């Protein structure tokens, strides 16, 4: 049988030669070690192969069943412009068809790019050390909690209810493994209730986790949270939107011990939720406890600068079951995408883009208030805020789609506030779109 598959190069002749070299008569003989009782009789019951042109049509058709409209939806994943240069750079197949840089001599490109990424994350967050990336911001947060528990040898973490619901959900799943407690801290309207938090944190608290800006877009006062953690020797873990850090004070400057988050706002497509790219940064004392990989600088035998995955001095046993984390990969390609995006924006571009986001959201908020809508946020917010609709959000979404928009996140889902809509306004939304959206919303709720 001749191969009809373009990814399989063996010809009949090749097969014949290889089999004859092996002194076997058929490929089946090479599977003689699989007991007959477990061998499949027929072919797998999956659809037949498609030629590339037909497949392309099918996939385009499938993609076209998904609706793209101007988004006023964020809640952790944001519609930002991705400079064309980003896609071109990560499409260099020397990057995307490589694996983990085990052999540094032929992986200097990847290693240097990640070293630069780590530096950019340190700069953004004001931290000393960043790793080479994590699965996503949500899982990075759970890893940070586990690190804090391991480091302090304490039994609970306190996580603000204004932290993303999916982060909190994953944290609960993760905590069930080693069996530590993840306790939620109450809200005072749109931010963490600091008075209640002060009473909740105690000598068994490994860490307090807050989000910056929080899930409702509001900016938590990290300095005040730090006062509380410091008093009890707990770590401060901050989950931060990296774009917001263009204008907000770096968490590292406000006392954060671990800063995590997702680089998605900087150069990574929304892609229905993934792959995105978590980041993880710590202060120097925690460096040796960071999960995942870190790239370090060194020299070769001739003194030339080069980069390697850092070895870490550890004791006694090979880690295996002694590991504190099982994370073995990163999101290298997306870390690269965000590094290219950050370099394209640069020092001033990042700030300008952050300010633009804040201004557009501010404009939308003020306009909504003018039209008589009430807004939950009492604290300053970044590019997202909660508008209270006179009727449930669930009933409004379809009408908004009819009007040509995708509305905000329904707070009925995780916060029991069916009339609360979390509206995101990025630099992608023009003034006209904002006005048309609010006009449509007015019409729908009347």
């Amino acid at each position, binding site marked *: 049988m001749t191969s009809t598959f373009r*990814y399989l190069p063996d010809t009949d002749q090749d097969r014949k030669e290889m089999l004859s070299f092996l002194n076997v008569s058929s490929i089946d003989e090479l599977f003689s070690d699989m007991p007959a009782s477990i061998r499949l009789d027929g072919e797998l019951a999956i659809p037949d192969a498609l030629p590339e042109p037909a497949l392309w049509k099918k996939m385009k058709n499938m993609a076209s069943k*998904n609706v793209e409209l101007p988004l006023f939806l964020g809640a952790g994943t944001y519609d930002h412009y991705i400079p064309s240069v980003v896609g071109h750079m990560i499409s260099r197949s020397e990057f995307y068809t490589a694996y983990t840089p085990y052999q540094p001599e032929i992986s200097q490109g990847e290693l240097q790019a990640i070293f630069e990424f780590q530096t950019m994350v340190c700069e953004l967050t004001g931290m000393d050390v960043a790793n080479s990336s994590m699965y996503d911001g949500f899982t990075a947060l759970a890893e940070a909690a586990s690190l804090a528990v391991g480091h302090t040898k304490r039994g609970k973490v306190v996580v603000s209810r204004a932290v993303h619901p*999916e982060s909190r959900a994953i944290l609960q799943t993760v905590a069930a493994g080693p069996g530590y407690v993840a306790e939620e801290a109450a809200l005072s309207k749109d931010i963490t209730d600091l008075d209640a938090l002060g009473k909740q944190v105690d000598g068994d608290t490994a860490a307090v986790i807050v989000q910056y800006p929080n899930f409702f877009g509001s900016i938590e006062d990290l300095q005040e949270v730090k006062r509380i953690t410091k008093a009890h020797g707990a770590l401060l873990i901050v989950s931060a939107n990296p774009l917001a850090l263009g204008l907000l004070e770096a968490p590292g400057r406000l006392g954060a011990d671990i800063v995590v988050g997702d680089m998605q706002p900087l150069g990574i497509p929304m*892609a229905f939720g993934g792959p995105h790219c978590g980041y993880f940064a710590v202060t120097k004392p925690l460096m040796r406890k960071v999960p995942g990989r870190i790239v*370090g600088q060194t020299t070769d035998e001739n003194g*030339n600068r080069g980069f390697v995955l850092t070895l870490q001095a550890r004791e006694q046993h090979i880690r295996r079951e002694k590991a504190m984390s099982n994370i073995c990969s990163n999101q290298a390609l997306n870390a690269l995408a965000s590094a290219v995006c950050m370099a394209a924006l640069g020092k001033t571009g990042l700030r300008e883009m952050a300010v633009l986001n804040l201004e557009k959201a501010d404009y939308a908020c003020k306009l909504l208030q003018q039209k008589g809508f009430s807004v939950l946020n009492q604290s300053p917010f970044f590019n997202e805020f909660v508008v209270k609709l006179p009727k449930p959000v669930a009933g409004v979404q379809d009408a908004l789609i009819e009007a040509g928009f995708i509305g905000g996140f329904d707070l009925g889902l995780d916060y029991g506030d069916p009339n609360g809509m979390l509206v995101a306004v990025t630099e992608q939304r023009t*003034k006209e779109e904002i006005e048309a959206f609010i006009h449509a919303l007015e019409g729908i709720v009347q």
Partner: protein
Amino acid sequence: MTTYTDLIFEISRPGRIGCSLPERDVDAVNLSEKLPAHLIRREAPELPEVSELQLVRHYTSLSNKNHGVDNGFYPLGSCTMKYNPKINEDVAKLDGFGRIHPYQPEATVQGALELLYELQEDLAVITGMDAVTLQPSAGAQGEWAGLMMVKAYHKQRGEKRTKVLVPDSAHGTNPASATVAGFRTVTIPSNKHGLVDVEELKKHVDDDTAALMLTNPNTLGLFEKDIVEIARVIHEAGGLLYYDGANANAILGKTTPGEMGFDIVHLNLHKTFTTPHGGGGPGAGPVGVKEKLIPFLPVPRVEKRNGRFLLNREEPLSIGRVKGYYGNFGILVRAYTYIRTMGPDGLRQVSESAVLHANYLRKKLEPYFISPYEQVSKHEFVLSGSKQKKLGVRTLDIAKRLLDFGYHPPTIYFPLNVEECLMIEPTETESKETLDAFADVMIRIAREVEEDPETVLNAPHTTVIGRLDEVKAARKPVVRYERETVQS
């Protein structure tokens, strides 16, 4: 030609920019009126300031210092570095897949949900499982999610089992995942044939055994022939069988983990199903389970009711969420595209060719390196460099010498039970000519070890940089760029 060695920070000059932002069309906001002073950034982060062309030259230069599958043979054992089809990339980049938001109303993402649903169904068939979650973002996360389900399953039955059995040839992530899931690990030694020692296994199986984690074919590339007996032993003791799908490239269409008796499976879509490794990620690690474990699968689940696709977030026994949203969707799109490209016939041929290639290459190299096991190989095989070690040349040196010929070396020093191990996985997508040329180079290096060891010991000779001082990197870690350090 001089090699480009600058860091992006070193080519930065104040005032340059590499992108353009939209114009401000709304009122400016006075930040100091809006935010308290201590929350406004005082010093801007030192991001590089470069023009777009500088940016392109920089990353193009870096890419030129990187070896991927598109550059050359990459027989990295256990990693399945097969060809990454181009149409997969194009499909994943379609706006209808790339530019949709995870919280859009279900009615506006029917195409995406349909793809996820069909991929779940396909992977269930391929693994012989009854249901699949696509949420885990990597093999290790799949392992952990699977073990959390094991835990929930036993708990539901009123049992608290604490022990997970792992063979000594297993990937290091297996015991690590077991620990993170709150189990203790017991290591089962392999016998002299490189297989799980069933008698030894029986000694450790008891009513505290939660699960056995097994890779089949194992990391030595050998099929665990006693799998049916192994499954019986575990199940009779009330334990579950976990299949590490790292080596699934050997079994497509030939058998399934379900047929073998496994209860839980993870697959690495970046290995078997051609999604690119991306320099270390992103990947995807879907998990399939047998019927009795379905209630414990993570939420949300993609379901089909009355011809519509939807997300089910409510399952009382679920272990909960393991990853944001619905998994690494962009990777799942690529794997789906691949499965539709190959169909059942194609996938079976994949495994047949992968196995043929491994055995062919193994036989070519056996006269020159120690081949520690008799049994026929599956998709990969191991060699030992113990003969070369006696001549003062180690497996790492051989690996470095391979770089001079444009090959990525095999996986080295793994599995741990083979001295000076070389683990070679040629994959089905390489041509016979490539296998022959690689064998010739390996044989040449084996001769060099005997006749001209200095050439091997001082390798690589042709790479952009020589062997790097890893000890220095570990003792005095420099993990970020700092202006001062470079000037001094």
